[in-house]
């Protein structure tokens, strides 16, 4: 556990001690703020519930996009700079390495989520909104962020360079986002499967509306677990080449 925490801390420190981390954070917050102002608040009067639903929808999207540059360096950068040797010759297992890297990405997502909280606070103060709706919405952001970070961690684990990692991560995340479009084109039984996999229009919707849906919680945790497992296996396989 110490080793996992050590890696998570170092990687998170690498974000906050460099322009890269602050740059992503600032850009993500700026985009989130602009989107909220433009689409969340809009020009017409809205109920608080509508505004907060729109906020979580937009923040969920920004979180997924931010997960790409955050995770692309996790393993790919270490491979490019040669520091992966430090991790591979450490007594930590591949599983521990992957969890440590994943946690550093999640710490970044949590920091981002925390820094966006002034927007729902603004709605809470000026509108009519329950705290539980905000908390459930943020739980959804963290769960979907977890899935995005896991996909990015996997992409980084199998990539030789950061560009490839970012492209692969983006394609992976986009695949889950646009599943709903595919769902409209295919017939049963694939329709049900593809629609079920859609991040936004199926799994994230309950969180947006302030409903805690166990099925969606399990879904996001399963996606996270599956991609972290694949990342672990790809690291293990490198030793056997």
């Amino acid at each position, binding site marked *: 556990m110490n080793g996992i925490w050590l890696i998570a801390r170092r990687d998170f420190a690498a974000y906050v001690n460099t322009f890269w981390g602050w740059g992503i954070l600032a850009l993500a917050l700026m985009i989130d703020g602009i989107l909220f102002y433009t689409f969340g608040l809009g020009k017409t009067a809205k109920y608080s519930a509508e505004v907060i639903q729109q906020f979580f929808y937009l923040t969920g999207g920004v979180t997924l996009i931010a997960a790409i540059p955050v995770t692309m360096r996790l393993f790919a950068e270490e491979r490019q700079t040669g520091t992966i040797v430090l*991790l*591979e010759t*450490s007594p930590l297992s591949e599983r521990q390495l992957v969890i440590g890297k994943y946690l550093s990405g999640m710490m970044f997502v949590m920091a981002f989520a925390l820094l966006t909280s002034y927007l729902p606070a603004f709605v809470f103060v000026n509108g009519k909104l329950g705290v539980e709706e905000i908390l459930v919405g943020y739980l959804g952001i963290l769960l979907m962020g977890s899935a995005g970070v896991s996909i990015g961690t996997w992409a980084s684990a199998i990539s030789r360079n950061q560009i490839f990692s970012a492209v692969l991560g983006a394609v992976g995340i986009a695949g889950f986002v646009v599943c709903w479009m595919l769902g409209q084109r295919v017939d049963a039984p694939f329709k049900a499967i593809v629609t079920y996999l859609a991040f936004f229009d199926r799994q994230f919707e309950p969180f947006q509306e302030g409903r805690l849906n166990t099925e969606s919680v399990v879904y996001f945790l399963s996606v996270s677990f599956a991609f972290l497992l694949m990342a672990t296996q790809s690291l293990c396989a490198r030793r056997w*080449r």
Partner: protein
Amino acid sequence: MIEVQNLTHYYGDRRAIEGINFRISRNEIVGFLGLNGAGKSTTLKILAGLVVPSSGSILIENVDIVKADESFRSRIGYLPEEPPLYREMTVREFVRFCGQLKGMPAATVEQRLPDVLRLCQLTHMADRVINELSHGYRKRTGIAQAIIHKPALVILDEPISGLDPSQIVEMRQVIRNLAAECTVLISSHILSEISETCDRILILHNGKIAAEGTEESLVRGASARGTRLTLLVRGERARVEQALKGVAAVQSFDLHDEGAWMRVHVALLNDEREALIAALVGAGVGIRKLVEDETELEKVFLGITTPTGAA
């Protein structure tokens, strides 16, 4: 004690190393020599735990690390040719991180840190950011990360490559200091460095151990295989060649014109220089100088790793 038994590794169908066996005693400094592609890096990576061998075993203090779990890696320190460094960290932060990464408790790392910095001659650089350091200091920081956790075996891949002469002298001292607390395996292309630093040498060729021993024993072995002479002679080239071919002990020779003189390098099966002189003088060739070539590590190495040259 480190014991490598029948170590073999394939990359797909290509054999990188085959049936490698050697032993290294505690606190010994062993040099690993070989041409590019001889299998040095593969062997080092296996020893460092980066690659799982196709077959064979590696016993470190009687534990087979091929079958052991990940914890065995805390018994090994590894410095690749290009030191793996987090350049945004200071030397102290980085070495501290590596110690903890290798499983050492934070308090123990703090206790050991000053000794390691002193051993690697980094004390005055401890709070400098690695990115600002020269290549030589980065190499030392790389060594510090490899030894902070008190490993039983330290593997240094080309530790002096890219260093200037004064840094080489300092690095030599750093490596010698290491032997006081662990076993050291050094891979290098620079034979003089291996000769200066190591107690024993392993020569790897075509994926197999071609020779091993102290420098003296290797040189003695090479000397027993024949004598090499250099002569400065005057005479017709054809006569010189004919005279040399007439001596049964001559294995090979080559001639270089140097103005009025000719420089002749001769490899003799036995030290029959009297017969050689008699043959040359008999053929009317004047001999100005005759010296026995000193058999050095370089010649031993080349003798093992390159095909015998023909006349």
